[in-house]
């Protein structure tokens, strides 16, 4: 078997799509990096992620949450990468990696409180739904501006190396984000300083309504690594085993001082961009249907079946279990008061509120006291 870590300084000139799970569910054992137990565990996580996304979209349609953005069809990319890292590694998410936050220990109810922006929200109602942060799990705060997390992930990994810590950071972003300024500077800085960072592009084919071909003329996303003198790889993002193996490889490279990896995971955004979007306005059903057949959960299911780890009715049981967990989380989350207290408006802007913020809080309190409409929704 060849050394999975590439020769330093050499840049790849071909970026073949790497897969591990074959059509029939079989896999070459030499290329499998997950134990059976771990593979089954991640299967469970993928199902939870899927069920959660479907349920939250329902809640949004019912008006119980205002917005949702999920990862339907991209579960293998999210969970394969997070599972390929060490617990101590920092994760810099975009906005579809909620399963990563939960995997890293964010309580489910806390996640739902964030969606509700209620009194239980760890973000104090400051952020839109789906922009969670979970520091105990080194899951960094989600931003909306595209790609800003990329140089940040580079900076954190660089800091770890300066301090002598064995920490590799990982950041996720879409293929649309590769057009943004911050992808460029992040990748370039990482290359020059051989920073131990893994840059994971969830290439899901679409950036809202803009298809991959209108985003960049490069044949692959992975080949963008060439511009930065860094390592690039391209894997089937719906193949959990391929994603996991590539992530582990990239982590070894990074931790060994061989520098960053740009990891393109080829997947597909099966649903609309978010609950605010209607993709029928810009793409046809055939394209979507073709991808439904390549579902990452079915794919891992076939592997587990091939490994004889998945009895026929097990999937339904796992689904039911996930739904129950979700039901309880929503129920618990809805017990919190719908709004955090009024002073949270001024909390966390600075370490200590400024004088004008204290005045403004008083002003607001007086206004609410005088006319309760001040705090009523429109």
């Amino acid at each position, binding site marked *: 078997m060849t050394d999975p870590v590439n020769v330093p300084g050499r840049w790849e000139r071909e970026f073949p799509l790497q897969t591990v799970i074959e059509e029939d569910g079989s896999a070459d054992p030499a290329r499998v990096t997950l134990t059976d137990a771990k593979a089954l565990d991640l299967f469970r996580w993928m199902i939870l992620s899927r069920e959660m996304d479907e349920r939250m979209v329902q809640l949004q349609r019912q008006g119980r949450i205002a917005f949702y953005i999920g990862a339907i069809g991209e579960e293998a990319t999210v969970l394969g990468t997070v599972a390929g890292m060490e617990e101590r590694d920092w994760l810099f998410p975009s906005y579809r990696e909620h399963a990563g936050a939960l995997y890293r220990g964010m309580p489910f109810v806390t996640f739902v409180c964030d969606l509700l922006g209620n009194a239980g929200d760890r973000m104090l109602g400051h952020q839109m739904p789906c922009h969670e942060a979970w520091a105990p799990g080194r899951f960094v705060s989600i931003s909306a501006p595209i790609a800003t997390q990329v140089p940040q992930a580079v900076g954190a990994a660089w800091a770890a190396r300066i301090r002598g810590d064995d920490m590799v950071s990982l950041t996720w972003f879409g293929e649309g984000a590769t057009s943004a300024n911050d992808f460029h500077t992040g990748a370039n800085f990482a290359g020059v300083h051989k920073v131990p960072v893994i840059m994971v592009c969830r290439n899901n084919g679409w950036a809202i309504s803009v298809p991959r071909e209108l985003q960049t003329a490069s044949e692959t996303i992975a080949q963008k690594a060439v511009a930065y003198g860094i390592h690039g790889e391209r894997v089937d993002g719906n193949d959990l085993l391929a994603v996991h193996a590539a992530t582990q490889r990239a982590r070894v490279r990074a931790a060994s001082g061989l520098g960053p990896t740009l990891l393109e995971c080829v997947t597909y955004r099966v649903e609309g961009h978010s609950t605010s979007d209607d993709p029928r*306005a810009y793409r046809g059903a055939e394209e979507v249907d073709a991808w439904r057949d390549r579902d990452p959960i079915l794919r891992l299911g076939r592997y587990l079946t091939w490994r004889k780890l998945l009895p026929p009715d097990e999937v339904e049981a796992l689904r039911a279990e996930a739904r129950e967990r979700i039901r309880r989380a929503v129920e618990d989350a809805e017990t919190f008061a719908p709004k955090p207290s009024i002073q949270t408006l001024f909390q966390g802007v600075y370490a200590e509120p400024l004088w004008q913020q204290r005045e403004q809080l008083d002003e607001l309190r007086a206004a609410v006291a005088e006319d309760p409409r001040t705090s009523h929704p429109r």
Partner: protein
Amino acid sequence: MPTLNIIQAVNDALRQEMRRDPTVVILGEDVGKFGGVFRASQGLQEEFGKDRVIDTPLAESGVIGTAVGMALYGLRPVPEIQFADFIFPAMDQIVSEVAKFRYRSGGQYTCPMVIRTPYGGGIRGGHYHSQSPEAHFIHTAGLKVVVPSNPHDAKGLLTSAIRDPDPVLFFEPKRMYRAARGEVPDGEVVVPIGKARVTREGRHVTLIAWGAMWHEADQAAREAADLGIECEVLDLRTLQPLDIDAIVESVQKTGRAVVVHEAPRTCGFGAEISALIQERCFLHLEAPVARVTGFDTPFPYTLESEYLPRAPRILKAVREVMAF
């Protein structure tokens, strides 16, 4: 006369100007096939083709940077920034390039363009889909800044902006996109840049607002009337150049002013208006110019009703100014 909302009025202005002037082109994220996430350019790619309604890659600096080149070469680009909150990646192109091209080349090169962007809160967007960054651009010499509050002005001001020889930031109050409806003539509508509109006359206090906040100011004025306070309400419509004459005339009459905006108070445009009023109406002022604004925090998610200056807080300021 058809009744339109603001999005329809914007769409109408774009279509008419594109028909009138073959150099007008639209570019931005999702503006083409999809017609924009708020659908402002809906149907335009079908009518004018992919060369004139362009879906770009995801990079605001690229949208504005290429629009500069197009404008230099003689096109009249109307780039869209999907949310005003996402204008910051293009800040360097706007502040260092768009605003300074005419000046730095001694007038040899100009890059007129209209940067359209939805701004403001009240749509449960949190701090990355609700901000009002107008002050940054008013502070940047070389740019004009326009904010319509209603469909008629949206059409008329956008038309003027597209024909203007200077670059214009055109902020659209997204909360009012569909909520504000009104009659808009079918044909050409031109509302001049630089002219405010007195939407209500009164002799006690001048309320100064723009965009979505004009609606709150108007509401406050109605409620004040019930209390016997007559507010004069100004819809500024253009923030740069400011219609200073309209403001001075009104405040010299009323002796009191309340400025309303969504952006954080400190260094917001309200400060400039307050400073200008006291510089020019000092001896007429019966009370300090009051500011009812967003607070000095990022725009919040859950408590956005509390954060936004709305009629009750404006009314409170009006009463305080009267009681001073």
